[in-house]
């Protein structure tokens, strides 16, 4: 067993695990944060997307020990003081989900996308950036709408702050 210590949503958290344990299972089973989902387990669907050291990754394809020492953000760490993150609010507003299973990964992907390319997103860019996330309910239409709306809202927020 190896002790893995991570900064999770700003807090230092540790757990013991076998070296073969996947990061997503560590997050769900050892840290009891079950917002991050396991969909396909084959790096296809993106339900397990989290941020590791500021970049989106698929936590089903990384060992927990590989992440040892890193800072991760999960869906639970996104909203501040019970207020929805603008991306979460946009998904709600634009009905960007039906069953909700893919939503944590979709939202974490959208936040990463806006962090990297915010202010310049177009429908085409959003659709190509969603390459690694699968939704079986929505047909993606409202997800794309939600991401674009959140991007516009966050860009306006940045402008107002300047």
């Amino acid at each position, binding site marked *: 067993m*190896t002790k893995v210590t991570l900064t999770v949503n700003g807090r230092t958290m540790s757990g013991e695990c076998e070296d073969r344990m996947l990061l997503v299972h560590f997050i769900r089973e050892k840290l009891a944060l079950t917002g991050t989902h396991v969909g396909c387990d084959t790096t296809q669907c993106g339900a397990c997307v989290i941020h590791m050291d500021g970049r989106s990754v698929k936590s089903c394809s990384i060992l927990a020990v590989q992440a040892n020492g890193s800072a991760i953000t999960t869906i639970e760490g996104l909203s501040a003081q019970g207020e929805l993150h603008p991306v979460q609010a946009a998904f709600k507003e634009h009905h960007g989900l039906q069953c909700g299973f893919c939503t944590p990964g979709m939202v974490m*992907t959208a936040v990463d996308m806006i962090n990297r390319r915010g202010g310049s997103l177009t429908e085409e860019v959003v659709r190509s950036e969603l390459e*690694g996330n699968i939704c079986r309910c929505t047909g993606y239409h409202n997800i794309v709408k939600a991401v674009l709306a959140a991007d516009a809202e966050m860009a306006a927020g940045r402008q107002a702050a300047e």
Partner: protein
Amino acid sequence: MYATSYHRASSVEDAVRLRGTSDESKYLSGGMTLISTMKQRLASPSDLIDLRHIPGLKGVSVEGRRVTIGAGTPHAEVATSQAIRAVCPAICNLAGHIGDPHVRHMGTIGGSIANNDPAADYPAGLLGLGATVVTDRRSIVADDFFTGLFETALEEGEIVTAVTFEAPEKAGYAKFNNPASRFAMTGVFVAKTAGGVRVAVTGAGSDGVFRHPGFEQALQSNWSPDALVSIAVDASGMMADMHADADYRANLVKVMAKRAVLAAA
């Protein structure tokens, strides 16, 4: 996944030393192939030597037209490097279409070429550019590096440390994605280099990435998609699987080569 023991290397020397203690160990870079393969129990290394935290393996440098990419550099960093884009946008475009954004944040150029998946993108890029692979022991030209399906010239325990190439006059890459995996069902990289035109094909050959001398000669005398129209692509050496048969892939080689030339213009 079978049990394994994880070790984090702090330097290339450290990695070699850690590996030396075990027979069945494997180097781990981004893990975007290896971890998936281990989950399917198609690989079961006793030990994993993680190269991702070795500072000397990361980063990009461009001096004049000489591009050097550290083996541990993730695809996303190559895709968005303004320095590389200024001299060789084709390799940025290639890197920017590997897998998906999350895979590109983890997967590395060194890991991709050491694995030499027959449908991976980087092998075509490196062979097309006439790049040189630098290891902890020597330099290997791309023509000698890729030796077959998942096979390379790397010896036991040898570590890729960097990839280097002279930016070509022109280059382009076009691939036909497998819609599920985003691997190349056929990808063609064309480059007009100081040493002549080079055309490298991935995803199609049953023996992995290969050059197409017929296309190279035709493009050498006429750099245009039209130059390829009358050149035959032999289907006998093509992969055939549930996604595409050999004839279909042979046709894709020509279609993608034309698109690559257009992309390079």
